[in-house]
Structure formats: C-alpha cells, structure tokens
C-alpha cells in the first residue's frame, strides 16, 4: 500500500516538473526579448549561445530614447484610438443589447439578423469597401479611420443582448411604473447587472484594438499618425535592422497589455469562458 502511494506521489511530481518545464519554455520569448534589448547589436550578431547578455549594454534603450518624442506620439495615438474605441463600443453594445433584449418594436428581429450577419462576415471582405468609404470621407491617414469602424461591435451587441435577456423584466418594469426614465433605467439598473459581460468585452476590445496591425496598416501611413504596433512593424522591416532598439520598443508596447491583463485576470478568464455560451 505504501509503495503504491509513493509511486503515485513521484509520478505526480514528475508530471508536475514536466508541466513546469513547458511553462518556462512558454516564457522564453519574453526573456529573450528583454535579453536582446540589453545587448549590443554586435553581440547579437556574434554567434554565441547565452540566454543572458555577456555584457549588459544600454545601446538599444539609448537608441529608443533618441526617438522618444516620436514613440510618445505613437503611444498617444494608440491610447487615443483604444480609449475611444473602448468607451464607444461598450456604450453602444450595452445600449443596443438592452434594446434588442427588452423592447418589442417593428423590425426588431430583422435588424438583429443584420447584426448577426455582420458578426459572421470576415474582415477581409469589409476592409476593402471600408477603405474606399474612408477615402471618400477624406479620412485616410486620420485616426478617425481606425476609430469609427470599431465603435459599434456586432459581437458586443450580441453578447450584451444574451446577457441582458437573463435579467428578469419585473425589476425594470417596476422602476418604470415608479416613473423612472428609459435612460435612467438603462444606466442605474441594467449597467450594474451586466458588469461581468462588459468587463469581458472591455478586455477583449482592449487587446484587439491595442494590438491591431492589419487595419492601421491599410489606413495610416504618416509616421506621426502611426500606432505602436504599426510603428514597430515598420521599425523592424526597415533595411537597417536595429535589433536591440526594436526589442526595447517591443517590450515597451507589451507593458500596457500585461498590466491590464494581470489586473483584470479574473474577469479575463471568466470572459474567455463567457464567449462559449450559445
């Protein structure tokens, strides 16, 4: 009996160690990113196997610091786009979700089917016409071209509608009998109850918007109009690849995503599981 528990115990430890090794491997790219950022470019292209730099060099950070003015502009662009997209899409998703969930009006199911159609169509289909529309509106190379198409999110509306339908209608009806206005009901009664769905949505939209590459690549081109990921891509594909500086900037971009993720981790995991309900 004792031998068996011992065998089981050691099997468990072995299994756990294996899992831990895989987890460490998952983190290597980030360690490598930092480790390259702290090397001289000369050391990077020399052929030496070392996880940590032989000589710590701040060249990369210095090169990035020289461009700090431009980097801050990119940072500001990214913050502006993500901030407006986030507030806008949360507001429109919850409002439209509320209306589709709790009101009966003519054309309701037709409009909702249209939204579902928008949910299904891949971005590759709409990106070309939206580009033409932006050109027509003279918004090419304007941050609005990135912001406007993301302010209404079919997925967000769908998620909020599903969630709000679960809220019993008695409560909102009672409030309205007491004379509460529609917007009051929406802000004071509905919003507080869908916080889990909204935080999941907020996190998804933040990541999607902060990391987006394809759409900004199409509509933004001026150096002072770029977002961080777009600039990083340009940084790296330019002829003279400045490894350490690129890695320093790549690390810099990661920090906001990481901070947000670690702060809202719990909602994040719940949100990921939430997207499974159908």
């Amino acid at each position, binding site marked *: 009996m004792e031998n068996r528990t011992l065998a089981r115990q050691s099997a468990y430890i072995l*299994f756990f160690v294996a*899992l831990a090794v*895989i987890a460490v491997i998952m*983190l290597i790219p980030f360690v490598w990113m930092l480790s390259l950022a702290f090397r001289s470019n000369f050391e990077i*292209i020399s052929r030496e196997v070392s996880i940590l730099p032989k000589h710590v060099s701040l060249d990369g950070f210095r090169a990035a610091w020289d461009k700090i003015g431009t980097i801050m502009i990119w940072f500001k662009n990214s913050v502006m786009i993500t901030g407006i997209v986030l507030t806008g899409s949360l507001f429109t998703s919850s409002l439209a979700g509320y*209306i589709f969930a709790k009101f009966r009006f003519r054309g309701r199911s037709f409009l909702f089917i249209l939204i579902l159609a928008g949910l299904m169509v891949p971005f590759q289909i709409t990106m070309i016409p939206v580009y033409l529309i932006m050109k027509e509106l003279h918004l090419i190379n304007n941050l609005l071209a990135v912001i406007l*198409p993301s302010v209404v999110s079919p997925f967000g509306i769908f998620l909020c509608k599903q969630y709000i339908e679960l809220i019993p209608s008695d409560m909102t009806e009672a409030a309205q009998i007491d004379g509460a206005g529609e917007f009051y009901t929406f802000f004071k009664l509905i919003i507080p109850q869908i916080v889990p769905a909204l935080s999941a949505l907020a996190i998804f939209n933040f990541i999607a918007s902060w990391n987006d590459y394809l759409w900004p690549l199409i509509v933004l081109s001026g150096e002072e109009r770029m977002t961080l990921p777009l600039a990083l*891509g340009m940084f790296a594909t330019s002829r003279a690849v400045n490894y350490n500086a690129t890695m320093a900037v790549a*690390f810099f971009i990661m920090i906001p995503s990481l901070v947000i993720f670690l702060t809202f981790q719990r909602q994040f995991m719940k949100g990921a599981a939430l997207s499974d309900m159908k």
Partner: protein
Amino acid sequence: MARSKYGKRPDHRNKKMFIAVSLTPIMLLFITFTLLPIVMACVLAFSSYDGLRGVLNFNGFDNIRGLLNDELFRMAIWNTFRFVLLAVPLNIAITLLLAMAINKVRNAKLKHLLRTIFFVPVIAPLVGSVLVWQTFFNYDHGLFNMLLEFVGLQPVHWLTETKPAMISVILMVLWADIGYNIVLFMSGLDSIPDMFYEAAKLDGAGRFRRFRHITLPLLSRTTLFVAVMTVLSYFQAFTQFKVLTGGGPSNSTRVLSLQIYDTAFKYFDLGVASTMAMVLFAIMLSITWFQLKIGKSQWEY
C-alpha cells in the same frame, strides 16, 4: 399592470423615442461600416476597379475566371489549407492535453499561475512576438540554430527555405495562441461532474477508457466551439505571415489573407481582391457548416 392604464400613452411614446434616439446612431454606424461594405464587396467582386483612378467597371465573372488561371492564387489557397489543416489539429491536441494536465495540478494557486503563464502570449502584441520569433529563426545568429549547433546538428534555414518556412510559422502561431483554447478547455473540463470519473474508476475503467468514454463525449460541445473558432481565426491569420515571412520564400507561405492584402493595397486591384475575399468567405462558411454538421451528430448526450 393596473397602473399602466393611466400612464399608457405617454409611456408608449417615450419608449418609441428612446428606441429611436439610441438605436438610430448605432445602426447608422453599423450600416456605414459593416452592412454597406458587405454590399459593396459583392459588387466589387464582379467588377474591375482601378483604385488609383477610381473607375468601376462591371465585368461579370471575369475576376473568377482570371483567378482560376492565376498560379499565385491557387498557391495561396493551397498554402492556406496546408496551414489550417496542420495548425488546427495540432492546436486542439496540444491545448486539450495541456488543459487536462493543468487541471490535474492540486494546488489551486499553482494551477492559476500555470494558466496565466500560458495565456500571456495571447495578450502580448502580436507584432512584438513575431519579431522575437524572427530573431529565433535567424539562420546565422538565431537561438534555434545556436541550440542545434550546440547539440551537434546541422543548422536549418527556418525562414529562408521553402520546406521549413510553414513549420516555422506554425510553431510561432501555436506558441502565440494556445493559451486561449487552454482556458476554454479548462472551463469545459471543470463542468464535467467528478462523479462520472469516480463511477468509472469503481467499474475499473483505466485512464485511457475514462478519457475516451467520459472526457471526450462530455467535452464535445467545448471541442466543437474551439474547433470552429480556431478554424475561422486561422483562415484569417495575417500579421504572423506578413511580419514573419512576408509570404516568402518563393511564396511558400503566401496565404489567402496576405494575397488579398497585397492585391488590394499593393497593386490596387480592389475588384480581384474582393473576389478573393469572397472565395475565402465561401471556404470558411462551408468548413464551419461541415464542422457543425459533424459536431451536431456527435453531441446529443
């Protein structure tokens, strides 16, 4: 109910006002940036459009006919399928195994920590991750070749030869997004009641039989969802290819999404690019339909 009698009229009007005021701007934005573009894409797909001069000419099925004879387009379709058919099963197998493994960890804190670690690449900006992997794959001074050399093996042209290039992209893609499916599988596994496993153990069912007859069938709803979502997202994968390989070497990693982007925004052939996008959508729809059909027949428990 009784009270609404004397409040009915103004209440009803208020509701109508509220719906109109809130929904109109939302629907206008939706129509302008989603619905109208879908209609426009359908028109563009059957037209030639000179992006530089802005001239649109309806040309029927010319675009499709042209694509049938387009070597590069056929190659892009082949590459897309090669990528999806390799990466999706690998992704699902790896994430299911890892999710089961992490779920077995007894210490709750360690369990959360592991899940977090696997999830971090999902939230990291893709462009940054791709750049790090690019340095891994570098022939002369990349980490992978240094390790190969260290154990006495020949270096590999990870990104510069046609054969390993697709494998390299898949390695990077798997690292970058297995975390998401791990979380989904873990929450799916959590919803399987323990008593099923205990009953099976009492009946003497081994590890493999418990997996085959309890885990797999009870997890089939999650698996279907994961499979559908992963296929849809991999068919649209763009950044990984654009930044890591740019479609090369000799177009061996040129996938549809990249070919659509280049056709539209490098050669400004918006009509043909829209036709390609329609083909992509048609492929995605039929595969999803097929998956759901297979899935439905299996998850009636």
